[in-house]
């Protein structure tokens, strides 16, 4: 794919100022960029305001892979299932070493750039990280601070009690809320 002269290149600038040059087809994996490119701002450098260089590198890796898969499957007539499986395996491998902080930025980036596949990978990864953990473990893992006051926490605990009361008064009160 590298020998073509027609390959249009697109330049992307990360939030921390690094410029990446990628093929247009790669950039177009991101729907947000696709829309922009179709509105014809090809020569300009596209600023990606909320994605840092290390994250953008990862994102571009993903997009390149998507382009490769779609082009190879169209030329060799692979049965869809197999490529689907390979894609899954690749996706798992792609997310394997990602820590929680990178994951967060990847989620934000793929959401912003509108890359559905990458977003799903990130979501699945995060779900697997959350599953089976205690609240404090989750807070630690994702650097989330418990910002409840004791009173607020108490309120969360109590606000569901209505469902378990036989007293119709509770039912009314909750449904009027």
């Amino acid at each position, binding site marked *: 794919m590298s020998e073509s002269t027609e390959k249009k290149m697109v330049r992307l600038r990360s*939030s*921390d*100022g690094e410029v990446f040059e990628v093929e247009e087809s790669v950039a177009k994996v991101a729907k947000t960029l696709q829309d922009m490119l179709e509105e014809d701002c090809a020569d300009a450098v596209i600023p990606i*305001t*909320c*994605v*840092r260089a*290390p994250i953008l590198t990862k994102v571009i890796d993903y997009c390149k892979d998507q382009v490769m898969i779609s082009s190879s499957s169209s030329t060799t007539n692979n049965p869809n299932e197999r490529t689907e499986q390979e894609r899954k395996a690749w996706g798992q491998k792609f997310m394997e070493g990602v820590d929680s*902080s990178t994951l*967060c*930025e990847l*989620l*934000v980036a793929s*959401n*912003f750039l509108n890359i559905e596949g990458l*977003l799903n990978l990130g*979501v*699945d990864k*995060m*779900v697997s990280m*959350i*599953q*089976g*953990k*205690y*609240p404090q473990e*989750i*807070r630690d893992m*994702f*650097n*989330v*601070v*418990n*910002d*409840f006051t004791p009173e*607020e*926490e108490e309120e*969360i*605990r*109590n606000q*569901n*009690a209505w*469902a*378990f*009361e036989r007293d119709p008064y509770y039912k009314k009160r*909750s*449904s009027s809320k």
Partner: protein
Amino acid sequence: MEYSASRERSEWDCIFINGEDEEGKWKLLLPELLQMIFEKVSLEERILCLPFICKSWQKASRSPGCWKSLDFRQLSRPEFSARFCRAYDIMNGRFSFSGLLKLLASFGEVAVQELVLRKADHITSDALAYALEKCPGVKIEWADEEEVEVNEVQLLNEDEDDYGGVDWGEDEDDVEEEDEVIEEEVVAEEEEEVEEEESEEEAEEEESEEEAEEEESEEVEEEESEEVEEEEGEEEVVVNHEEESEGLEDEDVEVPVNEDDNEVVNEDGEHHESNGTNVSYDDDNYDDEFDNDYDDYGDDDDNYDDNDDYE
């Protein structure tokens, strides 16, 4: 782009240019994103864990989109209700899956699309009506006809199974156990029948036990014959064997006789029938015997129970 509109510039710089501010980063996860994630987390954790992380997670967890699919099969029964009561300060015994259904229906409202319920959870028609009112488009599926059957089978097994039944009862289903105890008196007759069927299965188990028993009995016989004399008088000399013996009959008096029977007969079918009328494998009787008699049987009994545990 939405981001820059809704956020302070400096915050952006801090996170997206310098890559600092780990905490702030997570605040930037839009509620929609959190929702996408929460939607896929298991129902149990969605209820018990996510709302307690922090305010923004709590808010996201309450958005209807998180509750599109309510699959009650994901809630392990005794464990979940206990955890729920602890997490939400519900008085023990107040929890019901009907209440939970109402609660979740009020969370998800119109967004709820799929509802998988278990008949064994005894959802009241009241709660179901409430759910249907709150979540008009919902598709309800009853998942567990098999599961109900399984439970019944389990109950029977708890009556019949020698040791397994005792263990389960003690660990989890205290309430059920009480019921069983009552039932057992009623069911006793039925049990005898079932035991005959079961004796085939148990025969397999017990063959191995008997082999062990035979081996041991030769060694122990002499000792036992001595013990037997003592047994009648000294039943409270509890030794630290944790297990009860198999062939126990009514507590004290007949014990030595039975012991002899076991050794002589060595066939389960007969063994069961002879014992079935009195006691056999009833849990409560076990408990009684457990207290009083297990010391009598020495090493033989240990072997029985070891075998059972491993099988």
